[in-house]
């Protein structure tokens, strides 16, 4: 079995449709796919690796909570933000985490609209990743406002004493609506996809407690085709809504910068450049998580090398877009003839934060280019390393954009350096603890692969056998392809 699946995984990435095996490898049928995905959740013996990772993540998450508590108790002075750099790690981390989320929506919505059936193997946990990443992102603006008890000012809530409203002409408020909508829609999309699979867990439950717990969230799903019809239509519409939404979210995040007048921020390239970067970093995170999860839980036949290779191709494409955007920013800074703009970019590459800039360039521009080689694209260790570098690079991209432009703006007399404090650094590290804790809980209690969707793309799902005409047509077509 293992040698067979190994052989399969090697030919799995063939570009030739005639020799390409089905999306699900091995000798799987509906029952075995159900079994393989459900056993991860149903097992009474949680893998040791899960406990080790969970213990670590939960500890790191506790540190995040401690840092937030300290911040609330003492004030934002515990951070390195100052005048002129009023946006430090909090905003860098916010943009970083929102960006991570984008890959999940791209996989679940855009690839769905493009009928990329391979997405079914990875869409569930990519969507989960989106939700957890956006939760991490939302923490930062929330704790960054200084007086946290005023955080409700972000929303247009009527107040009897202070009869005032938020400023809708500010991109910061657009951001509240964009990220809030993004989180809500992603959550609905994810939960909707989960309903049939939660019903599967309910129906397989061995104990009353499990049956009730999953039963409540399954809402009484009984696989009715009258329900499937509305469900599929709603799912398609949600995908069609999430597609412009995801493009708008990072565009609006980039408006936080681009609508300002600061050199290095005030550029029209920001929205597409941010979106490409977001997808780039998000896919790196999906690859990272997928490689680890499939090996811990033996899901190599469902999340195959082809999935990983396809994602690496997307990383290559979006990484090249990001590299192009870096080059174009420099070109326009020179070609535009604005001395402040051209200084801002020289300062980025050769100023006091030169190291951050070159970490960003080497991680984001150089490392994905290695994916031109199929050997590297299909090598597990190589993709783990590159995915790691891409995420480091994308974090530094946000650092470079946020900090260098603020630290050196129009008047040299107003310049000032920014350095993070230990609280800044531990808060950033802690946010990874929050992310991985949520992700590990998800893997333990919910099906990480969309079973119903996987079954629908298996060869057994296509019922041609009862229509002789269609069957003949199918055979003729198959022969023509050969």
């Amino acid at each position: 079995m293992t040698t067979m699946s190994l052989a399969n995984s090697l030919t799995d990435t063939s570009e030739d449709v005639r020799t390409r095996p089905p999306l699900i490898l091995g000798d799987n049928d509906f029952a075995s796919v159900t079994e393989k995905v459900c056993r991860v959740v149903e097992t009474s013996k949680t893998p040791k690796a899960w406990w080790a990772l969970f213990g670590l993540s939960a500890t790191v998450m506790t540190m995040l909570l401690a840092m937030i508590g300290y911040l609330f108790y003492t004030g934002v002075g515990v951070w390195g933000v100052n005048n002129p750099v009023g946006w430090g790690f909090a905003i860098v981390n916010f943009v970083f985490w929102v960006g991570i989320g984008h890959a999940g929506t791209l996989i679940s919505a855009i690839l769905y609209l493009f009928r990329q059936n391979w997405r079914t193997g990875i869409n569930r946990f990519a969507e989960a990743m989106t939700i957890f990443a956006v939760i991490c992102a939302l923490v930062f603006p929330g704790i960054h406002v200084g007086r946290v008890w005023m955080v409700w000012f972000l929303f247009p809530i009527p107040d009897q004493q202070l009869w005032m409203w938020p400023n809708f002409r500010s991109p910061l408020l657009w951001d509240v609506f964009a990220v809030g909508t993004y989180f809500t829609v992603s959550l609905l999309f994810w939960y909707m996809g989960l309903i049939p699979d939660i019903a599967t867990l309910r129906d397989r439950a061995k104990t009353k407690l499990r049956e009730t717990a999953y039963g409540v969230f399954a809402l009484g799903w009984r696989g009715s085709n009258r329900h499937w019809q509305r469900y599929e239509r709603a799912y398609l519409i949600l995908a069609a809504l999430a597609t412009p939404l995801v493009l708008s979210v990072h565009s609006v995040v980039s408006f936080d910068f681009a609508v300002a007048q600061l050199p290095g921020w005030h550029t029209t390239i920001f929205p597409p450049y941010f979106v490409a970067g977001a997808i780039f970093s998000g896919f790196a995170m999906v690859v990272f998580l997928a490689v680890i999860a499939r090996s811990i839980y033996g899901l190599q036949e469902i999340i195959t090398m082809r999935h990983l290779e396809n994602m690496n191709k997307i990383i290559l494409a979006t990484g090249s877009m990001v590299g192009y955007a870096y080059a174009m920013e420099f070109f326009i800074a020179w070609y535009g003839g604005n001395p402040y703009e051209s200084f801002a970019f020289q300062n980025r590459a050769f100023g006091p934060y030169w190291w951050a800039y070159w970490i960003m360039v080497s991680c984001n521009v150089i490392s994905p280019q290695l994916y031109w080689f199929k050997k590297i694209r299909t090598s597990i260790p190589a993709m783990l390393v590159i995915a790691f570098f891409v995420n480091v690079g994308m974090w530094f991209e946000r650092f470079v954009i946020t900090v260098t432009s603020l630290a050196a703006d129009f008047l040299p007399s107003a310049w000032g350096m920014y350095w993070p404090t230990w609280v800044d650094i531990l808060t950033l590290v802690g946010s990874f603890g929050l992310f991985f804790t949520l992700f590990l809980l998800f893997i333990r209690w919910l099906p990480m692969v969309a079973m119903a969707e996987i079954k629908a793309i298996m060869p057994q799902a296509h019922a041609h056998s009862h229509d002789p005409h269609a069957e003949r047509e199918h055979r003729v077509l198959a022969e023509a392809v050969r």
Partner: protein
Amino acid sequence: MSGGNGSMEGKMAGYLLEFETPGQILEASRQVRDAGYTRWDAHTPFPVHGLDRAMGLKSTLVPWVVLGGGMTGCATGLLLQWWTNAHNYPFLISGKPFWSIPANIPVTFELTILLSAFGAFFGMILLNGFPRWNHPVFSSDRFRRATQDRFFLSIEAEDPLFDERGTAEFLRSLGGSHLERLEV
């Protein structure tokens, strides 16, 4: 949801016929449709391609709910921004106009998407009659496989054409691997 014990005391709720492949349920559904039954259903672990037509289902109302949600969201976004920033408490900031469409597009767009998505999700939930945790089909133990790897056809006793003996015979003629009486 709870497993039935097949006792004969309950009230007849209908029949449940089990199939092993999507092809079989597709063919059987065509026949049930042509026989004129109306209160019946096919239960499958995944959406089977072509089953909507085989069952003769009409198109769904979900897109209209979405349209309604989207238009409400769009109007809410525009009105909210106009009322708060240009009407109820106008305040000048950065010399920007109190009211200008370009600055108000992002929030309008997001609310349009948000309420459309609510329309799609809650429209599907409400039209499907969710949540509904009890149903005659859940009384069957075999039905647990409807969300895993088996395909079921159910005809309710409420169907005007339903006849305890005739329907059973009709269902037997459709093939299938197991015929079961549903009771509540």
